[in-house]
């Protein structure tokens, strides 16, 4: 019995247990939308702009660990996915993007709404396809899900011409995926793991650096076991937040440009750095030649191309972090590091994470309070800017997949649509999108999507009418010559929220408002914008100046009364 390409696609998505497709319709995807209508298992989530569809799919994927799916039409629909695909690519997030294309007979003629999305997305997807024959479609879709979710995860795009999705064919279920050129290495080399155990045995000042790879390989329990067994402090990258509970005494919080002082000191002074699923981004290492100068560096990663890319390592292990740690745990014995941990404790006491006094409303304080009220268990999504760094610094994450943020690409406009995906992925969780007035305005039209889906997301909006992280850069690097960073046309965000059916707007203006307003928002069960009016003077500290090593960071200025009392 013949079915259309579109029907075959939806059938396959159902078999893959896809529950949501985030999308926006158009002429080139009519057959696909027609087929979705017939599905009882898949729900279509209509976004307000395609970029939000891919961000939502990525938020969904980050929470569930399974591929998020988005759908856009040809031409402008497809190009609107580009930022989100690049975001997912940089952060290794499994996303399957489906785009419509003009009919195969029209390809190359500059037809209406034609764009070479296959060519455009080559550098920002793990792999992509242009399906010219409907008979190839089942195999391609199966391969796409396989590639997106195995090895180092990443986005995969499938471009389907409209005559292909509309074509009737004799559907044959695809056989097992066998790609000659794609065989990820999961098991670490036993000799290398043995060497690592030896390094650990010899080390006196070890530090574990956990990245996003720990989260994507679900290695948090193995990480916890290793840290406790060898008594090594654990720092994480931005992408690794939540991999290790920050209320644990071995936790150092985040490393890097805006990392905690004690993480930066510990890494600069350690003699063994065990790096798990990280890619040594310049925001993490600052200057490669000055990074962990006294340490033997061990790098465990599933992607061989990451090893030796930015930092020269002493011991590379290619493999899945979880499987490598499982093997490693069998080979290491209990270790104590009293004097090293004493030193780390001393750094924590001498250089704690601080912020200015509460004579005014401080965003750091709001985030800290949110952390207390939710006991570090909410799903936090962020946009990009000062608020993102404060969320990373002051919300004490206790579980993996609870910090959803654009780490690598630094995509403003990510947080709120990602929260839509996150809330659908985990309907019982409290999802808070922490954002700034600049970032929120990039995708605030998604209020409509969240309203339509009855999602009780909390949007914690820090409004200082400034693009404040850029303002901060201009403060430090351009001698306070501020240009293009002031927003004088901001709406009343509380009223804006109130104008959406079922949504509410709340405002925090003073430190004493924080707790009651947050509690009200947490308990109201509604889509809520909480606008915090904060000072534009606030800067993110600590900060490592360009070209400096991590331990040369600038701390919170004493004259500004750095305290969190």
């Amino acid at each position, binding site marked *: 019995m013949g079915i259309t390409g579109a029907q075959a696609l939806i059938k396959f998505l159902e078999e893959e247990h896809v529950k949501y497709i985030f999308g926006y319709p158009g002429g080139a995807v009519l057959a696909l939308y027609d087929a979705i209508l017939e599905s009882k298992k898949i729900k279509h989530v209509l976004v307000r702009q395609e970029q939000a569809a891919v961000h939502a799919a990525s938020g969904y994927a980050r929470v569930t660990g399974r591929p998020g799916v988005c759908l856009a039409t040809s031409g402008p629909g497809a190009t609107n996915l580009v930022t989100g695909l690049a975001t997912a690519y940089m952060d290794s997030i499994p996303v399957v993007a489906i785009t419509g294309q003009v009919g195969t007979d029209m390809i190359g003629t500059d037809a209406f709404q034609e764009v070479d999305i296959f060519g455009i997305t*080559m550098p920002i997807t793990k*792999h992509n396809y242009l399906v010219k024959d409907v008979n190839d479609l089942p195999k391609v879709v199966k391969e796409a899900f396989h*590639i997106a979710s195995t090895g180092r995860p990443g986005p995969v795009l499938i471009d389907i011409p409209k005559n292909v999705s509309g074509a009737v064919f004799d559907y044959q279920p695809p056989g097992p995926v066998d790609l*000659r050129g794609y065989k990820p290495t999961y098991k670490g080399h036993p000799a290398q793991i043995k060497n690592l155990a030896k390094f650990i045995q010899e080390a006196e000042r070890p530090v574990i650096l956990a990245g996003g790879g720990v989260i994507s390989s679900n290695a948090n329990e193995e990480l916890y076991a290793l840290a406790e067994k060898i008594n090594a402090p654990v720092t994480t990258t931005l992408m690794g937040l939540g991999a290790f509970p920050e209320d644990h005494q071995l936790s150092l919080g985040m490393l890097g440009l805006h990392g905690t002082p004690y993480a930066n000191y510990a890494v600069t002074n350690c003699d063994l750095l065990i790096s798990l699923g990280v890619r040594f981004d310049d925001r993490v290492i600052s200057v490669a030649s000055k990074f962990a100068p006294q340490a033997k560096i061990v790098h465990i990663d599933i992607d061989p191309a990451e090893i030796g890319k930015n930092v020269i390592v002493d011991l590379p292990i290619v493999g899945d972090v979880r499987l490598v740690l499982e093997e490693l745990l069998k080979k290491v014995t209990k270790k104590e590091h009293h004097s090293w941990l004493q030193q780390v404790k001393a750094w924590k006491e001498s250089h704690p994470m601080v912020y200015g006094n509460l004579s005014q409303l401080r965003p750091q304080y709001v985030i800290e309070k949110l952390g207390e009220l939710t006991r570090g268990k909410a799903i936090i999504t962020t946009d990009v800017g000062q608020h993102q760094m404060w969320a990373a610094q002051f919300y004490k994450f206790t579980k993996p997949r609870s910090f959803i943020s654009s780490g690598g690409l630094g995509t403003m406009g990510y947080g709120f649509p990602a929260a839509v995906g996150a809330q659908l992925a985990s309907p019982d969780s409290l999802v808070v999108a922490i954002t700034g007035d600049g970032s929120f305005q990039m995708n605030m039209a998604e209020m409509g999507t969240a309203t339509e889906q009855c999602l009780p997301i909390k949007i914690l909006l820090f409004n200082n009418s400034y693009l404040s992280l850029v303002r901060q850069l201009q403060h430090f690097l351009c001698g306070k010559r501020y240009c293009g960073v002031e927003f004088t046309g901001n709406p009343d965000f509380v009223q804006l929220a109130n104008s959406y059916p079922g949504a509410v707007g709340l405002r925090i203006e003073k430190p004493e408002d924080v707790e009651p307003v947050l509690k009200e928002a947490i308990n109201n069960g509604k889509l809520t914008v909480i606008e915090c009016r904060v000072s534009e003077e606030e800067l993110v500290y600590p900060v490592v100046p360009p070209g400096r090593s991590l331990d040369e960071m600038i701390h919170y200025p004493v004259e500004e009364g750095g305290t969190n009392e």
Partner: protein
Amino acid sequence: MKHTLAVLVENRPGVLTRIAGLFARRGYNIDSLAVGRTDNPLISRMTIVVDGDDRVIEQVSKQLYKLIDVIKLTDITNDEYVDREMILIKVNADPAIRGEIMQIVEIFRARIVDIGRNSLIIEATGDEGKINAIESALRPFGIREVVRTGKIAMSRGPKHKNGKSQELL
């Protein structure tokens, strides 16, 4: 240092773009890239000459290998291998000096493949050094047009690095 990479790839549309694009966006310098299908019509082989130190070449190789369409990649620089390049040169050749040009062609074991009223087209194959030498030997006559294929290379001896289909399928 120049490295010669033998790369087996799926013979599919877009693969060349993927590879060339990877070089461009990561800032690696391709010296030459020659591509054609192997005895297996589903597989193409590329010979890529790339300039860089060991770290660069390691990154190039790893990044290339990450591409789903890349089946196998071998750096044959330090192997014993045979390499060839082909050149077609159209050179000014008034009847009076044709003899002189023909002598040069003879020395390089090249061939004249076309004769015009005032020009000749010469075909030569050989390693890069030989091709460079014939090009400079003919330059004084006035070169009108040159086309070079870029290097193709194959390891000597019994090693199977040339994409034998039975090995791969």
